[in-house]
């Protein structure tokens, strides 16, 4: 078994646009999907969710409050999964809720 990181990217979510019920439903979809990977014993590390705010340091010491407005998909978090190869890791990524919101999952092998 090798380890792969799944990087979740999604368009920024304005929490004012979604009702608490929708938010709860999104949370449930997310947990059910992650639970499905964990149930196969293939989740190596989970729950690393990133805040929507942050800072970016650029060359020349320029600090901005994030590039997040400039790019369509911001990094929302990551999982580390165990799989035999990248195809299996990609199969695990299927059903990820970010795909429903116009986001993407990037699958990258970890050296080791």
């Amino acid at each position, binding site marked *: 078994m090798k380890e792969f990181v799944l990087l979740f990217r999604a368009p920024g979510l304005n929490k004012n646009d979604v009702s608490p019920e929708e938010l709860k439903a999104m949370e*449930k979809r997310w*947990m*059910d999907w*992650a*639970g*499905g990977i*964990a*149930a*196969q*014993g293939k*989740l190596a590390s*989970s*729950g690393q969710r990133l805040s929507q705010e942050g800072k970016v340091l650029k060359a020349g010491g320029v600090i901005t409050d994030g590039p997040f407005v400039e790019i369509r998909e911001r990094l929302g978090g990551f999982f580390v999964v165990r799989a035999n190869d990248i195809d299996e890791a990609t199969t695990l990524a299927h059903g990820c809720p970010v795909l429903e919101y116009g986001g993407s999952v990037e699958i990258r092998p970890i050296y080791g």
Partner: protein
Amino acid sequence: MKNEEEDLKYLFQQEFAKMVAVISRMYGLQYIETAEDIVSETFLLATETWKEKGVPPNPTAWLYVVAKQKTLQYFRRNKIFEEKVIPQLTSTPEKEEEADLDFSQQHIKDSQLQMMFAVCNPAIAGEAQIGLALRILCGFGIEEIAEAFLSNKETINKRLFRAKEKLRSENIKMEMPAENEIAHRLDNVLHIIYLLFNEGYYSQTQNQILRKELCIEAMRLAIMLTEYDKTNLPKTNALMALMCFHASRFAARENKEALVLYEEQDENLWDKNLIEQGMHFLSLSAQGNEMSSYHLEARIAYWHCIKEDTKEKWNEILSLYNQLLMINYSPSVALNRTYALYKANGQEEALREAEKLKLESSHFYFLLLGELYKNIDNKKAKLNLKKAFALAKTQTEKQSIQNRIDDF
């Protein structure tokens, strides 16, 4: 007469743990076997004397006096006290005169807590540790331990011997861990208590009294931890809540022949008092930010105390199982999670997920598949039940699976 014998057995079991803890605290864990011998001899003398003269009005006081004498005799006679123990003692030599075992309630309690941390030291991990806990912390006899593990006396004796060797070679001391270490060291103590409880709750042995006793002992140890400020943490209370909720179903899950499955239990037999206790500990566990696996399992167990099936119930249970799996994977949790998924999100989604699990050595897996294929593909449902039948270990299990096959 029978009752009196049982009372004595219970008394000895309780006092064994206390007295061994106090003696070992005084002389050090390297003499733990001596302490066991002294206490056993004390019980022997008690049984003989009490048979003739009757049980004294205060039997524990009697035991303490005799144990004190025997302890002093042993250590004096062998000059162990002067030559080995005194040089080890850090306090003043006048201690020799006062070298008197302190059997006050507080001292017993402190000694037992220290013994818990000593026995649950990660250095002696493994099967031997639970055995040692049963012997030293719960006062179980070798025969009972062997029965609980479906093993024999010889094997258990060997295991205990090795564990005690380890206590010596790792130089484990009877003391409370430093303040900043307690929370971390407590994890191991809680884990052993959890294993003890599970050993009783899910044990293979048919001896229902023994199984129940294991569970009660585990709860007794956890209560001791809740009575001491520094170990009375949210996770301790979460474990306590979990055990209360499970224990509330003792009467309902047992009948003469076999275990009664949750779905078939008569909830009037659930112990309301224990459920209330569980709620009490559950609310105490909700302080602070830590979400231990005990918190999650306690909440799952809580939801199982509500018999009525609601959407909310199964959504909650599913979410808790998801979180539990993310902390710690185990095949049985994966199966339970898939069952909750079935109840919460429906048969088809659960079937898709179940097919991914590939837990093909477990008959529970094929039972679940059998259930999930029902009405979707009855042929496959039956096939899976047959696989479950082939893998089932006990006759009772086989019979209940056969009944389900016959239902098709």
